[in-house]
């Protein structure tokens, strides 16, 4: 496989790299070390810049006005965009825009008018409501929220947990059980307006990510029109599953970017820092840490690009996406941990970004499907259906 970049990819990667270093990193000097948003005036100014670069709305399909980028290029960009303090969960603070909920591209025309297009224009926000207190990795079994048909409506009762952005959203995708006997074929996806009577954000959930919280939702006799079913009744699992697989590639890329930045900071630091009369870089213990970083980063990058390449070519990529997520999150954690060690006491202070990366990287081994589930997916693929 050829991992060399095309001329266009070189140009885009260079452009994004300069943008991060010249526009994003300097702003972070004045922000709270845990901040995940910019001042409104900076956000507006930088969005105008990314639009002028032709790189706004990265994940929007070209037919809806997004830039035409293949997944390999998009992955290379994600690696660059995460190379700053907030980069793991807020790459470039969102100034490259997003596509919102990708599932809406498969919506009916009426649903697109009401939810997709306003989202793309930045007028509406959505949330993705899958995980429940009974679990998130096995939606076929864990979903207990129930939807019962009543005339032209569905009546939904139940709740969701660990949902990002529901307290600020105008609508959300809520997965509910519509047939209790059919497992994965008994789940339906509903588009729910957050001002619907019976929709409650009961509490926020604090996590290691101290600038971002999740929410817990409750639905009490919440009536949703049948017209708000996304896709087909009892076919919601495929919508959830597709999203989970696709998300793993950019998720992996973010970890690689942070690992690269941490490694870069360590490479600058160890020749300058002296112990017992010689620079740290002359110590074999330090050299081996740097070598292990290099290997971790390269291995994770190749595996992630391979998954992106397969997805771009339209080949099955579930196993490769799972491997990329698994390897990149674990490699990223090891790299950040080693860099923190090389920086000693400074490494654990808020003066440097390592402590934030360390906390946030820990979540990456659980988010988007814990790494044990990724191993299960890979095992199922290599051993066949007998493990189901």
């Amino acid at each position, binding site marked *: 496989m050829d991992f060399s970049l095309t001329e266009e990819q070189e140009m885009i990667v260079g452009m994004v790299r300069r943008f991060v270093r010249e526009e994003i990193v300097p702003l972070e000097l004045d922000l*709270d*070390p*845990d*901040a995940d*948003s910019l001042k*409104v005036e900076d956000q507006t100014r930088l969005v105008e810049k990314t639009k002028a670069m032709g790189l706004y709305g990265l994940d929007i399909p070209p037919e809806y006005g997004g830039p035409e980028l293949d997944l390999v290029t998009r992955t290379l960009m994600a690696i660059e965009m995460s190379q700053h303090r907030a980069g793991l969960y807020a790459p470039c603070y969102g100034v490259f825009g997003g596509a919102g909920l990708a599932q809406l591209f498969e919506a009916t025309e009426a649903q697109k008018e009401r939810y997709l297009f306003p989202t793309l224009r930045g007028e509406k926000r959505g949330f993705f409501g899958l995980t429940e207190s009974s679990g998130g990795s096995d939606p076929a079994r864990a979903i207990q929220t129930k939807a019962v048909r009543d005339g032209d409506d569905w009546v939904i009762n139940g709740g969701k947990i660990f949902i990002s952005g529901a*307290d*600020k959203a105008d609508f959300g995708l809520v997965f509910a059980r519509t047939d209790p006997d059919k497992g994965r074929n008994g789940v339906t996806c509903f588009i729910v307006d*957050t001002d619907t009577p019976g929709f*409650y*954000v*009961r*509490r*926020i959930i*604090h*996590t290691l990510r*101290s*600038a*971002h*919280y999740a*929410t817990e939702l409750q639905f009490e006799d919440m009536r949703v029109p049948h017209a708000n079913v996304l896709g087909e009744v009892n076919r919601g699992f495929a919508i959830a599953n597709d999203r989970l697989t696709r998300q793993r590639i950019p998720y992996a890329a973010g970890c690689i970017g942070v690992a690269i930045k941490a490694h870069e900071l360590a490479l600058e630091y160890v020749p300058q820092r002296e112990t017992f009369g010689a620079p740290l870089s002359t110590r074999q213990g330090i050299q081996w840490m740097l070598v292990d970083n290099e290997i971790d980063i390269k291995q994770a990058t190749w595996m992630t690009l391979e998954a992106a390449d397969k997805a771009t070519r339209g080949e099955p990529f579930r196993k490769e996406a799972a491997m990329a997520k698994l390897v990149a999150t674990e490699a990223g954690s090891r790299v950040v941990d080693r860099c923190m060690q090389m920086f000693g006491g400074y490494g654990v202070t*808020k003066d440097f970004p390592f402590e934030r990366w360390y906390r946030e990287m820990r979540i990456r081994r659980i988010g988007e499907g814990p790494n044990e589930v990724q191993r299960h997916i890979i095992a199922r693929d290599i051993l066949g259906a007998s493990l189901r």
Partner: protein
Amino acid sequence: MSIRCEKAWLPRTDLNGLYGHMGVFQFGNDVEEVIFIGYAGGRSLFGLKGEIVSEFERLADASCYRFEINTAYLTRYQELLMIHVADHGVLPPYNEPMPNLGRLSP
């Protein structure tokens, strides 16, 4: 942890228990109504002590305060603001409007 701040109010003259920790704080008026919610983050000089002393200089109406030491100061700060809006319909009088503040139904 209760989602509302339930610490005892302290008079503004009593700053002895304050140190340089990160965390959140509330200011109250004479009848212990919350009039301001703030936080001391990773860049606050002298943490809670520095922020509270400096805000007391700005807000003469504040007669008492309470605080929580919390490393998740940013999310706790937003949570306290959201709870205040859920309970009273508006932000505390001395807090600036926050366009992206979420909504809670606690």
